[in-house]
């Protein structure tokens, strides 16, 4: 018993900041101080206040905000838009400011040694008065600016952090850094002040701003690695987008559902799987919107709720198109089995689009979701941001155990791949390609199932036509090679056989 090591288990405090508890595997280390470092404008103060706000909202636990920089009235004004009723909570005794911001017009002269005894006494008093369990200090850099003697400031910061530990509160200290990638803080002491370090970034990439959060260090406990995108919602504050941290714990189901086109169901070996994500790729006009329409009609025919996100066409266009193929979207919406959300990609950044899609899915609770097209969203994001979006979206759809139908427009008319496909093809369960095929001076359309996870499928490239009733899949293209590569060539059978033979010849 004597030689048993003392194992102090670090418990975490759920912050209730959307998504953060997920990437931090349970929240902030309880009873400890976490350093929150970031450049100017990286939302450190918002995070620091929101941490307190969510505590009050979740279980009424008090919060103390120690400010070295902005005055309390300014802070309240700046965060008013988030709907945080700080003034009311102050009256109710749940929220307290410790105002250590510089006093304008008061000259301070230094004569000898001093300490931060008064500050510590004030923080302790505020914590007791509000019965606070959460404390935020904003910011370290400002206190170094206020007191010129770095050595004293350092020593006193350690004392302050020690006092917070004794009080048993979970705390955040913000620190300003000058570069997005580089030293954690300006004064070289920041990371030693706290056991835990979180970095907020606001990087300019391809002329687009991208906010990310990274947990750099959690002493003695685990967290998710890497940078996680986050956004600041006007009515909510910070929302971290956990993306692939969403566990893929979904059960693979063997239930088949109809694609809405019977020939296509046959090609897939009996239809799509219930909880799978299908990617349809093709050039503009090859029939992707048509296939989404069939996919939805196939669901609503069985009274399954369907949700369509359109990023390329307006509602009116979509409804007109559907009518042209004999599908009545309007009636479906009136019957409550369909919801069409048409948005222009540029109306929001990708993080906000993802959050909106997730919110609508959770509200409408569909069995089928179609996104037409996913590639339209490439426009509003960086390559990295887009990849994260795709991962986030597909894992969310799988998590909800519904069927996702995503379309992607290829950049070249005759085929080829898009960025979307590169990012998504390994995540999706099925890939369907639509291609133009030039046959004897006429453009025809071809469809093939490239991949169908967990099932046998038709490997041929089938010709299909579109009329007033939609899509009709016909015969296999014969005597044509190079369709998928976007370079169809007619061959007679002999030539093809010779070519195939050539592939396996030994004397290469």
């Amino acid at each position: 018993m004597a030689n048993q090591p003392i194992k102090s288990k670090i418990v975490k405090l759920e912050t209730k900041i959307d998504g953060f508890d997920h990437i931090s595997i349970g929240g902030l280390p309880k009873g400890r101080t976490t350093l929150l470092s970031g450049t100017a404008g990286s939302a450190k103060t918002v995070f620091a206040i929101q941490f307190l706000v969510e505590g009050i909202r979740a279980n009424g636990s008090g919060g103390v905000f120690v400010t070295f920089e902005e005055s309390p009235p300014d802070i309240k004004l700046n965060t008013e838009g988030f709907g945080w009723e700080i003034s009311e909570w102050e009256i109710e005794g749940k929220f307290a400011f410790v105002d250590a911001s510089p006093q304008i017009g008061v000259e301070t002269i230094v004569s000898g040694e001093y300490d931060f005894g008064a500050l510590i006494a004030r923080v302790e008093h505020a914590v007791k008065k509000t019965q606070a369990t959460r404390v935020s200090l904003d910011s370290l850099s400002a206190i170094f600016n206020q007191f010129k003697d770095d050595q004293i400031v350092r020593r006193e910061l350690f004392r302050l952090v020690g006092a917070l530990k004794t009080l048993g509160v979970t705390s955040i200290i913000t620190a300003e850094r000058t570069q997005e990638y580089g030293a954690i803080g300006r004064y070289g002491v920041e990371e030693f002040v706290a056991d835990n370090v979180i970095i907020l970034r606001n990087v300019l990439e391809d002329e687009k701003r991208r906010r990310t959060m990274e947990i750099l260090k959690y002493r003695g406990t685990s967290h998710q690695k890497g940078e996680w995108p986050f956004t600041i919602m006007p009515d909510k504050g910070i929302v971290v987008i956990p993306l692939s941290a969403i566990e893929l714990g979904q059960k693979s189901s063997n239930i088949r559902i109809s694609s809405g086109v019977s020939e296509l169901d046959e090609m897939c070996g009996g239809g799509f799987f219930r909880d799978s994500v299908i990617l349809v790729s093709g050039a503009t006009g090859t029939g992707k919107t048509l296939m989404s329409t069939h996919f939805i009609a196939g669901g609503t025919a069985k009274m399954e709720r369907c949700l369509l996100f359109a990023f390329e066409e307006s509602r009116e266009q979509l409804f007109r198109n559907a009518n042209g193929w004999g599908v009545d979207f309007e009636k479906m919406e009136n019957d409550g089995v369909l919801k069409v959300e048409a948005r222009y990609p540029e109306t929001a950044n990708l993080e906000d689009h993802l959050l909106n899609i997730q919110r609508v899915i959770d509200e409408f609770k569909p069995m089928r979701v179609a996104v037409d097209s996913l590639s339209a969203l490439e426009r509003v994001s960086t390559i990295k941001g887009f990849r994260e979006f795709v991962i986030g979206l597909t894992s969310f759809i799988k998590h909800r155990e519904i069927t996702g139908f995503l379309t992607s427009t290829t950049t070249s008319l005759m085929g080829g791949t898009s960025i979307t496909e590169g990012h998504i093809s390994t995540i999706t369960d099925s890939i369907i390609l639509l291609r133009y095929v030039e046959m004897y001076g006429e453009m025809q359309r071809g469809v093939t199932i490239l991949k169908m996870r967990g099932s046998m499928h038709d490997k041929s490239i089938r010709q299909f036509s579109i009329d007033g009733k939609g899509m009709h899949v016909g015969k296999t293209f014969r005597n044509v090679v190079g369709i998928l590569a976007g370079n169809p060539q007619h061959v007679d059978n002999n030539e093809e056989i010779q070519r195939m033979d050539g592939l396996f010849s030994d004397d290469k």
Partner: protein
Amino acid sequence: MKYLLKLFLTGQSETSRRAVENLKTILETHLSDQYELDIVDTLDDPESATADGIIATPTLIKDLPPPLRKVIGDFSDSEKVLFGLGLVALDEDQETTDT
């Protein structure tokens, strides 16, 4: 005219004791009985420290005569304290700005 002064300390520390001693010497020498000194322990009265925006201790506040000034430290540098009280101008800087 009387000087209205307030001294903030934290507990009965060695720094607190030294600060009171240094300050009293300076005040007795330069202001004799022309001052009122109110001593506040922030541990007993954190609300007062809040009202005056005190962070560091010891802090001396000169409420009157104006302008309001703060001197922080253990008052071991009596020149600085006298400047804070407005009893002397502070060396070269002060003069160069005037010329």
